[in-house]
C-alpha cells in the first residue's frame, strides 16, 4: 500500500491517487483485529486524535463505483469492531484525502461530541423494529367500523375496474386515512410496551401498511428481557399485526443528532 497523498478536495483525482476510506470512529485505545480487512481487502489502520480514532483503510480514489462487495466489507468491519467495544459508524462512502485532513475535518473538531457518542453506545446495541399489518384483517376492521366506507364498498365492489372511479378513489382515500389513524394508535401501543426497556429510540417514517418503523438502542444486558417482551407482544397481536426485529446491530442510527444532543 502506498502512502495516501495529501491533496485539497478541489483537485480532481488522477488514476493512481489514493485516499482513506473511513469506516467508523472508535475509542483511541481500540486495536482492530489483525485479520480484519476492509474494502479491496486492504488492511485497517487507526488515525488517532486524543480519546477517539478513525478506522480507515487505503484505497484508490479512481475505482469502480458502489459495488456490493464494498457494502459487505464496510458492514463486516463495523460489525466486527462493534463486537469489541463502542463504534460510531461513519456513513458509507466517506473517503478522506489523507490523515492530516481527516484530523482537521473530523477528529479534532468533533472529538468531544464523538467521545460522548461512544459513551452513549458503550454496552448497547441497536435493534430495528417494524410492525406490519395483516392487511385483510385490518381492512376488515376498517370496513366494520365505518358506515361510509361500508356503503362505498358495497357500491363499488361489484362494478368493473374502470367504472365508479370517483367512488373507488373516495373509498381508498377513506381507507388510507383510517389505516393511518389506526397505525398511529398501534404504533403508540407497541412503543409503550418496549420503550421501558430501551435506552434511546429513533422513529422512522411509517406507512399505512407499516404503522411503526423504529430504531432502538438497547443495553446489552437487557436484550433477553427486551426480546422476550417483544415476543409476548408479537403473540398477542399476530392476527392483525406482525412484528419484525432485526439485530443486534451496531448503533448506525445513534451516531449523532437527537441521540446525543438531547
Amino acid at each position, binding site marked *: 500500500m502506498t502512502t495516501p497523498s495529501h491533496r485539497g478536495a478541489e483537485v480532481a483525482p488522477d488514476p493512481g491517487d489514493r485516499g482513506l476510506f473511513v469506516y467508523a470512529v472508535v475509542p483511541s485505545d481500540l486495536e482492530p483485529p489483525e485479520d480484519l480487512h476492509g474494502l479491496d481487502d486492504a488492511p485497517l489502520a487507526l488515525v488517532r486524535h486524543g480519546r477517539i480514532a478513525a478506522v480507515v483503510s487505503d484505497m484508490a480514489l479512481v475505482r469502480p463505483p458502489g459495488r456490493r462487495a464494498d457494502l459487505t466489507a464496510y458492514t463486516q468491519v463495523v460489525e466486527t469492531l462493534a463486537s469489541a467495544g463502542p463504534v460510531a459508524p461513519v456513513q458509507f462512502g466517506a473517503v478522506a484525502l489523507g490523515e492530516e485532513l481527516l484530523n482537521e475535518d473530523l477528529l479534532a473538531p468533533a472529538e468531544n461530541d464523538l467521545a460522548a457518542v461512544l459513551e452513549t453506545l458503550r454496552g448497547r446495541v441497536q435493534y430495528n423494529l417494524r410492525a406490519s399489518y395483516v392487511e385483510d384483517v385490518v381492512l376488515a376492521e376498517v370496513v366494520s367500523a365505518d358506515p361510509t366506507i361500508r356503503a362505498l364498498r358495497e357500491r*363499488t365492489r361489484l362494478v368493473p375496474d374502470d367504472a365508479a372511479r370517483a367512488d373507488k378513489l373516495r373509498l381508498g382515500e377513506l381507507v388510507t386515512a383510517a389505516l393511518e389513524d389506526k397505525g398511529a394508535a398501534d404504533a403508540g401501543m407497541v412503543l409503550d410496551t418496549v420503550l421501558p426497556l430501551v435506552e434511546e429510540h429513533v422513529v422512522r417514517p411509517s406507512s399505512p401498511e407499516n404503522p411503526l418503523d423504529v430504531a432502538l438502542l438497547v443495553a446489552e444486558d437487557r436484550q433477553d428481557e427486551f426480546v422476550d417482551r417483544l415476543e409476548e407482544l408479537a403473540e398477542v397481536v399476530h392476527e392483525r399485526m406482525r412484528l*419484525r426485529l432485526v439485530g443486534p446491530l451496531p448503533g448506525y442510527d445513534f451516531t449523532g443528532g437527537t441521540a446525543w444532543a438531547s
Partner: protein
Amino acid sequence: MTVQTSSRSGGGYLTRPAPSGLADVLEIILDKGIVIDAYVRVSLVGIELLTIDARIVIASVDTYLRFAEATNRLDLYEHGGKDLGEMVGDLQSSGASGKVEGVVSGVKKAIGRGDEDDDDDDDSGERRPRKKATSSRRRAESR
C-alpha cells in the same frame, strides 16, 4: 455482533430475519452514521436509485385505488375484523393455537430480488428500480 438467525425460545411469533441481501444491508446502513461534510463519496448511483424507489411512501391515487380494490376483495364473513381487545380475550380463553406461517416474507422481495450473486458487478447500470406498473400489495412494505 453477528445477527441472530433464529428466535429465542418462545412463541416464535416475532420475525427475526438475518439481513443478507443487498436490500437488507441498505436498509440498515443507508443515510446512517456520521456524515463528514464535503467528503469524496464513493459513487453509489445504482444503489441510490434502488433505494429511493424502495423508500417511496405511497400516498397517491395509486394507493387509494389499491386500498379500494383490497377492501372490495375482502371476504368479511371469513375475517371477522376483531379488535385487539377481542383478540387478547380469544388468546386467553383458547390458548395461542396455531402458529402463524408466512411471516412477512414479501418484505424484501421487491428490491432484494436478483441481488444475491453479483458481488463483483458494478451496480450502477443494470439494477433498475422496480417500475411503477409493478406496484403490488407488497411494494410499500419494502421501504
